[in-house]
């Protein structure tokens, strides 16, 4: 098999990468390129579809098929592509502006339909390409050229939006951890149906180090909790702290002297959205920020549904000749 011999290099295009030096996008690109050979999918069957934004330049750097579309619409274009060619492996690359501002609605609908595309949302909490305006994930009070006195817009949480959109696979990862990205991407690629992955990404120019408090090496273990299926939600450099549910509220505590409540065990497969919503409510600094797979449930795929209807229709009406089509109503003859 030809594809078995592919390497990361095969997925690097000949285009010069044009992100700012230090941009988190480089690490994400490297992670994706290193994951590609492991998918078992031939290069020509892989397509990257993106919107507009720094992040959305992504397809140019992948030596696969690529479509750099228009702002916010990548999920819709990917939908049409995937419906027409269900055996392609389609990735969507988008940003917090592209995916949650102008493109919020398409994101919602592609997820609820469970189209089998993998959506990578690069969240740098800012509009990079247009030079630094606040985005839907920017913090309240964030000062930018378009919000010189601070943003008044309550930020949204991409994970919560994805869950409300009935996404069947929802995860979060971060540019500072290639290994975590790689694993997360592989899980997403293996999932049948839509996969939504928020990637925390550092925009060194317009929102420098915004996630450092959370994910820098020396604080990471205290400020993040890595979700592992079947494992308790444990964190801390010594893995000595846990996340507990007490009534309707979450809190952290030491494992040795646990607080009131129940230590959570990670169950991404729960059909009910309740548990995943619980995790999605965890935000730093009140709680450690969860990364990993929040939810992963089987759901019927849309493409299969469409193909199924076509097959069923053909069984019922096997005759698809034009003559039959033309004569399908009342007809008469003029002699």
């Amino acid at each position, binding site marked *: 098999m030809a594809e078995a011999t592919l390497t990361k290099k095969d997925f690097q295009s000949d285009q010069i990468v044009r992100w700012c030096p230090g941009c988190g996008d480089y690490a994400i690109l490297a992670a994706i390129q290193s994951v590609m050979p492991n998918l078992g999918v031939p290069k020509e069957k892989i397509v990257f579809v993106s919107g507009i934004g720094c992040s959305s330049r992504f397809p140019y750097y992948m030596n696969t098929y*690529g*479509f750099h579309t228009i702002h916010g619409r990548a999920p819709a274009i990917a939908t049409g592509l*995937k419906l027409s060619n269900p055996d*392609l492996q389609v990735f969507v690359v988008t940003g917090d502006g592209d995916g949650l501002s102008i493109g919020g609605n398409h994101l919602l609908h592609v997820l609820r339909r469970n189209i089998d595309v993998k959506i990578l949302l690069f969240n740098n909490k800012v509009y990079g390409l247009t030079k630094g305006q606040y985005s839907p994930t920017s913090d309240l009070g964030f000062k930018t050229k378009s919000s010189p006195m601070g943003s008044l817009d309550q930020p949204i949480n991409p994970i919560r939006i994805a869950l409300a959109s009935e996404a069947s696979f929802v995860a979060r990862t971060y540019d500072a951890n290639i290994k975590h990205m790689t694993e997360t991407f592989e899980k997403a690629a293996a999932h049948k149906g839509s996969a939504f992955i928020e990637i925390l990404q550092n925009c060194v120019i317009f929102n420098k180090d915004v996630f450092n408090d959370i994910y820098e090496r020396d604080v990471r273990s205290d400020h993040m909790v890595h979700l592992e299926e079947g494992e308790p939600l444990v964190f801390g450099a010594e893995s000595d702290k846990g996340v507990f549910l007490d009534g309707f509220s979450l809190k952290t505590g030491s494992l040795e002297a646990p607080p009131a409540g129940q230590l959570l065990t990670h169950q991404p497969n729960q059909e009910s959205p309740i548990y995943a919503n619980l995790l999605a409510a965890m935000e730093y600094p009140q709680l450690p920020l969860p990364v990993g797979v929040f939810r992963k449930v089987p759901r019927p795929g849309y493409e299969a549904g469409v193909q199924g209807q076509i097959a069923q229709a053909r069984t019922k009406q096997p005759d698809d000749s034009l003559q039959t*089509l033309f004569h399908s109503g009342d007809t008469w*003859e*003029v002699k």
Partner: protein
Amino acid sequence: MESATIRFSGDSGDGMQLTGTQFTNTSANFGNDISTFPDFPAEIRAPAGTVPGVSGFQINFSTHDIHTPGDRPNVLVAMNPAALKANVADLEDGGLLLINSDAFTKVNLKKAEYEVNPLEDGSLDRFRLIPMALTELTHRAVEPTGISKKEADRCKNFFALGIMYYLFDRNLELSLTWIDKKFGKVPDIKEANRLALLAGYNFADTTEIFADAYQVPAANLKKGNYRSLTGNQAVAMGFITASKLAGRPLFYGSYPITPASDVLHELARHRHFGVQTFQAEDEIAAVCAAIGAAYGGHLALTGTSGPGICLKAEAINLAVMTELPLVILNVQRAGPSTGMPTKTEQSDLLQAMYGRNGSSPCVVLAPATPGECFTFAIEAFRLATKYMVPVFLLSDGYIANGAEPWRIPNEADLPKFEITYAESQENFQPYSRNNHLARPWAVPGTPGLEHRIGGLEKAHLSGNVSYDPGNHQLMTDYRAMKVRNIREDIPGLEIYGDPEAETLLVGWGGTYGALFTAVQNQNKQGKKVAGAHFRYINPFPANTAEVLARYKRIVVAELNEGQLDFLLKAQFNIQTHTLFKVQGKPFMVREIIDFLNAL
């Protein structure tokens, strides 16, 4: 009688569309040429009995070729006062006015805002008024079935249809068969409708309300098998046909909107042809999904009406830049903004031409009749895929909902068009061009053709992003030339009417029937008038300048404020006389004749 025009009118709930369609099919089957014009109420169901709730269906049937549903009905059926009010002004003087007198109650008169009962105040004297207790008569007719009063009420349209069948000496067979099929599962309703239809016919026969039945003999239509087809049905069938001819599946991305929704409904019924209909979350997603499918190698179509085109503009430009084949159907309605959704208009032509940022040439086609909706659906895909370019197909509410007999083609007679995808190769150049300037259609999944496209300006040949000034000029020119050169691939503009005419009546799209009839009429009266009708607007046919130059006087008639006129003036440096109408209504033949006579 050579031809006759009937208009059925009643409340939305009275089944007038159904009655009209039955009469149409029977007449068509009989061999008449026909043309119909359904006139729906605005989309909200207005309160029963009010003028906004009136639904109408006009049919013109004839022993010779006809091209319009008729200006003014010879016969008007009015099921209630509101229907009378909404339609009586159109009835020709001396016309037959059949009225359900049972519906002329105080309440209904008030709902229709009649102060006095028009049946009693002499205001209808110039017509041959025939009031009949239609409700009562229908009730009596269906009594044996024991159905409820409400159910019985709903049969009165068949009673009225029966009367009309008698009056025009039509055979009941087709409608009886239809009733059997339609209501097969509810025997008493089936029986009731049967009884109502027969009773209407017999009542007309025995009561001698009419002096005699009229004869509108069969027309001398070309031999063949026929069916009746609306523009919306035709266009859907055309797209499926294109897909079969090309051997590529059809993908339709759409979002419901009046009057285009029926194309979605029609295509959705044809999954067994491999058709995929995708009801998107909005028009933007609909066109984007279609672009995705075009990229994926499908015959990609998106359809909507005017306001939806606004929303699709940005994405259509992406298709222009990426040079993907995309067909955009616009079933035009009266604008601007929401406008009058159920009414017809031709005012989206310049939007199709120029409604996008930048220099953004697309092909623009406009079928002239319901039947041409079929052929132009195929033509749209032939051009889109051959030239790798978005193609607008401009239909309108009038031809979309109007029906005419359609001679069923033989598969062998249909146009062929071949589609070739790029094949695996070394050093693939996604923006190389063939001799008609099309770039290769490289479908994901093809080994070795991995490449990137997008909305930024593309470098010639490589397709990489390019900000080079000369390249931008070159690519802009290519995009324009590609469309301009299609001139060589389409038929020339044809002239109909008097070959020695000095006046040329020019139109485009759905007004053909009225313009053609007006020219015929003028010629009969010895007036030296000819006509030319544009189906190809961008590019115009190659001989356009030459044809226009032949005439002393050019008259442009269109259902807008002068959009084709504008294009012709700008491109061909001509002066014109103009007849513009923006009323949400098709042209009446009379209006055109009067205009020509007054020149």
